[in-house]
């Protein structure tokens, strides 16, 4: 296990461990209460780590995982440009027309579209694009939107679990543990359809049997013209070209020792170049600035600050201590440790933001390496963390950013989702998905 490495003087002669842990807990608490911008909070925490003497500026900068930052930023740029084409609405409408507007079929199709998009885009963007169309479609069908929005929240978090780029925790885990896009596909993708189908079964049991729509309402669905959703065919072709290149790049990048951030940033730059090709410099500058306003800078700076805060805690030896305590709790039993990581991650992610939680867990798992025979032996722990943190987000309305986004859209549309109603439907279902994940990990890696 790593030793505490704070060699310099800490402000007022305070104990570095307690100061660093207090800063981390304060950032956690204020992020949970949602009274301040979370990027500002994490950057303040980062500043306190440096000004308090726990980290030097060089150590703080070295602690920022620029692979995660680059991958997030690059994908956000690509998505910001792609969403202007209307392709997501096109796919959603095609999907619901394919089932001829049957209410349960519509739910399955929209949830599937959400899950697939979430695997390759960030979950918040996916629900921001799909949920408003869902409100329109359920309105035309004359059905209650809640079951549809509920299924999309679950689908976005389940789909996002499947790939390296699907959910920020996976990006962080992939970068920290040097796991490739292919590793995520090979290890997490196989269980995701099972989790998704079981979730759909439970949704059907809860809501599916009562879903009915009149013939007139279904005819209204069939009157949607998906071709009208495409706003810019030229840009759509460019986006599809770059998206294909980027996804292909992700699948082969590990073989060429290229980090996913390099693929995402190169793809973003290429699409930025292509989208305004042939236009004047003024128009190009204008378009670039427009795209940059769509990048979620709050998330990016939240990550930067958080990486520094967690690095500070790591430098004091607190995380090594936590790892040691976890191992003591499980008697150093690998299977029990995997189970503990999975369940603690799931329960914690249902209650708090999974990004700071995963940021704290990553160095803790790293510190367990020597006890379990080195970094290569840790893979089941990484998959347990990814499955727990991503699927756990389904447990409550505050479990993931996408959940809150859908709740906000529903509220503005006059169909508020009550916290307790969601909890009643989702928490048990989340536990079922974690049981499935536990079984999968056990059978695949521990049996």
């Amino acid at each position, binding site marked *: 296990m790593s030793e505490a490495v704070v060699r310099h003087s800490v402000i007022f002669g305070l104990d570095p461990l307690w100061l660093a842990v207090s800063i981390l807990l304060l950032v956690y608490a204020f992020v949970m209460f949602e009274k301040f911008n979370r990027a500002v909070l994490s950057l303040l925490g980062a500043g306190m780590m440096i000004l308090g003497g726990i980290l030097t500026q060089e150590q703080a900068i070295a602690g920022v995982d620029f692979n995660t930052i680059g991958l997030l930023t690059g994908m956000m740029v690509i998505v910001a440009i792609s969403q202007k084409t209307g392709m997501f*609405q096109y796919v959603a409408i095609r999907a619901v027309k394919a089932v001829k507007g049957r209410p349960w079929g519509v739910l399955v199709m929209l949830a599937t579209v959400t899950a697939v998009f979430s695997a390759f885009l960030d979950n918040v963007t996916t629900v921001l694009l799909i949920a*408003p169309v869902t*409100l*329109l479609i359920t309105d*035309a069908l*004359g059905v209650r939107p809640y079951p549809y929005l509920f299924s999309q929240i679950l689908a976005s978090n389940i789909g996002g679990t499947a790939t390296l780029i699907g959910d920020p925790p996976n990006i962080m885990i992939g970068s920290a543990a040097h796991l490739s896009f292919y590793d995520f596909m090979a290890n997490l993708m196989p269980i995701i359809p099972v989790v998704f189908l079981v979730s759909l079964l439970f949704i059907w049991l809860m809501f599916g049997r009562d879903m009915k729509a009149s013939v007139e309402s279904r005819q209204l669905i069939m009157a949607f*013209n998906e071709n*009208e959703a495409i706003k810019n065919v030229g840009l759509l072709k460019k986006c599809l070209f770059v998206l294909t290149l980027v996804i292909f790049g992700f699948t082969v990048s590990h073989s060429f020792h290229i980090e996913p951030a390099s693929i995402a940033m190169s793809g973003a730059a290429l699409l930025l170049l292509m989208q305004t090709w042939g236009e004047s410099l003024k128009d190009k500058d204008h378009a670039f600035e427009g795209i940059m306003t769509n990048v979620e800078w709050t998330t990016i700076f939240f990550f930067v600050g958080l990486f520094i805060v967690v690095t500070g805690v790591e430098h004091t030896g607190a995380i090594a201590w936590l790892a040691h305590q976890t191992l003591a709790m499980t008697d150093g039993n690998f299977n029990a440790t995997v189970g503990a990581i999975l369940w603690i991650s799931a329960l914690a992610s249902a209650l708090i933001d999974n990004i700071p939680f995963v940021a704290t867990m990553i160095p803790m798992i790293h510190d367990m390496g020597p006890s379990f025979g080195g970094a290569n032996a840790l893979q089941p722990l990484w998959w347990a963390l990814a499955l727990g943190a991503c699927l756990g987000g389904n447990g409550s309305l505050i479990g993931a950013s996408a959940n809150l986004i859908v709740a906000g859209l529903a509220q*503005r*549309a006059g169909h508020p989702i009550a916290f307790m109603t969601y909890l009643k439907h989702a928490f048990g279902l989340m536990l079922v998905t974690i049981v499935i994940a536990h079984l999968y990990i056990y059978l695949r890696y521990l049996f």
Partner: protein
Amino acid sequence: MIASKFMVAQPQTCRLDEQAGEVFKRMRSLGLRLMPAIDAGGTVKGVLSTLSLLGHIVPDYIVSGDLDAISYAPDFGLLRKHYDIVSNWMVADIIDTQYLSVGPNESLLSVAAALIGSGRHEYALVVETDGGLLGIISAGDILGLLAQMANDRQNDV
């Protein structure tokens, strides 16, 4: 000049328990854009206007701006479906309960100022202290009165 002298007295009204669709048909046949809604005792409870009706027909998810360009949706079919639903609602479910009211002794200037003040209202209801409806004054009525006065003065000259 006080409000009771230039208001439109005894305006057309509707009851709270009437169907919104029926009242709207009556408004169209009379060329009206609004009707005060009164209870059985004659007390004003709100105003049914073309905008309050339209406000219940256009879905909130469009009004909120979360879904803007929807050229792909059968908008006429959707709106007609909503109109069919809303037209069967009672007037009480649709009326705007926030409306501008003035007393019968308010001056022309203070009524005009109230109309263009915060919120910019097209009309003001003239009501007694017990809520009984006496009349209605619109911005057009005030301008019409002024134009009439100017015309009369020109004719006198």
